[in-house]
């Protein structure tokens, strides 16, 4: 079985929503093909591998989710907005998907599919253009950043009334997690935050955990969850029909266009970090050397 490289292993990985783990009831899930058990005990959370119940794994509760690690985790990335007092923070659901984590992240970064996959919500034909945007990989922060991303959207959020050009910023601060900031329909100076945290159950199966941190004091939590689930439910059949399921890191495996700049940067970054799980690593071709 393929094991994650040390870089991946020494990250925190999401394994459950806070509320999924009730006290007195062990919660079973899988991380990197390793079955694990989460328990909420009187003195806090306990996470162990099912086959090594004596040895506790590191555990962290953050952003409404439970995180653990099979290695020695470096600090979890920051989402400073999460702690702003007036934000409505919610777990929008944890859904199992038959795809690799990097494919799901790439889809999260992608705007070109809005008119086709999220028709009449995040996009609508004929407004299909992906305008030029900027991408940088910040080596010291260890994250991919795409800015000035703009797209024409008929209904950008639960609270929006009509079509508008929406501006996005995307961060990939973790090989399997991404955070986006988008113009907020109710306050033009602030940004709604939506994040996807992928739990690598196996190389080709994930649990996609979704966080929303919104400026919206009108909609109910149920409404806001419904919006995000509607969107992700539309992505799901696309992700499950992508082949190969693992993300190919060879630039010649697929055909990028300018709109895919962020995906290309992400693939390069994964290559540089030696990420080897959920991807098809780049093997230099003799003819190219």
């Amino acid at each position, binding site marked *: 079985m393929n094991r994650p490289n040390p870089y991946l292993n020494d990250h925190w990985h999401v394994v459950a929503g806070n*509320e999924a783990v009730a006290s007195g009831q062990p919660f079973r899930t899988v991380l990197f093909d390793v079955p694990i058990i989460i328990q909420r005990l009187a003195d806090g959370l306990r996470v162990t591998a099912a086959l090594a119940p004596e040895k506790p794994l590191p555990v962290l509760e953050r952003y409404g989710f439970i995180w653990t690690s099979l290695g020695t985790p470096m600090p979890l990335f920051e989402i400073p907005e999460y702690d702003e007092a007036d934000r409505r923070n919610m777990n929008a659901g944890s859904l199992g998907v*038959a795809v690799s984590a990097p494919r799901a992240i790439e889809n999260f970064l992608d705007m070109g599919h809005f008119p086709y996959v999220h028709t009449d919500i995040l996009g609508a034909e004929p407004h299909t253009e992906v305008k030029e945007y900027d991408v940088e990989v910040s080596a010291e922060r260890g994250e991919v950043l795409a800015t000035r991303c703009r797209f024409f959207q008929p209904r950008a959020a639960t609270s929006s009334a009509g079509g508008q050009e929406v501006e996005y910023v995307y961060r990939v601060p973790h090989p399997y997690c991404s955070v986006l900031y988008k113009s907020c329909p109710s306050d033009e100076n602030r940004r709604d935050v939506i994040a996807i945290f992928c739990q690598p159950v196996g190389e080709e199966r994930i649990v996609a955990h979704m966080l929303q941190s919104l400026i919206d004091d009108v909609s109910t*939590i*149920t409404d806001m969850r*419904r919006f995000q689930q*509607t969107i*992700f439910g539309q992505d799901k059949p696309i992700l499950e029909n992508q082949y190969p399921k693992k993300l190919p890191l060879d630039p010649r495996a697929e055909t990028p266009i300018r709109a895919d700049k962020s995906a290309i940067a992400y693939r390069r970054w994964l290559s540089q970090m030696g990420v080897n799980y959920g991807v098809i690593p780049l093997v230099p071709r003799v003819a190219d050397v």
Partner: protein
Amino acid sequence: MITLYDFELSGNCYKPRLLMSILGLTYETVPVDFYPGREHKSEAFLKLNPFGELPVLVDDGLVLRDSQAILIYLASKYDKTGQWYPLSDPAVLAEIAIWHDFANRITATASAARLGLSMFYDVDIEAAQAGAHQLFRLLDEHLWFGEREGRDWLCAPSHPTTADIACFPYVALSEEAGVPRQDYPAIRRWLDRVKRIPGFTVMSGVFPAGPAIEA
């Protein structure tokens, strides 16, 4: 006013949404936080449906559960063409009952496997998938012979009925249940036909079809 207690990702809730869209009915939606909130097991919801299941439809004080029962009600009351649930045709009505039962069997297999895989319901996923494949073999055969007999739909030869609506959602969502449809070409063609019914609407996980060729 018709009110539907609804969860977007539920195929059973999609059935009344689909029929109401085709019939051009307006209705109100009450979103229920089925997942992760399990609101359908809340005390308030259990008063509407003691089984704690979605969907529930309320019309003029009448509270209905069970998606097939809801389809029968909507079609009988609101379909002016009389084709979706043809009250005057006993043979077709009986056929519809057979396929409504079939729809529940699909829920018990294909939908169960999907809930197991995507929302971690405690089900025997492999058994559910095998059950779905058995049903799909029967469905494909029925539809394949239908094409040869001049019957494009499940029951009546010349038009769709509530049976088509009842069977459509979890067949169309079967890939999420780990049940591919590659071995069922007649099912795949029937899905296209359903998607081309005027007024058809999608749900998350179901793609629309392109227009048919003009004759």
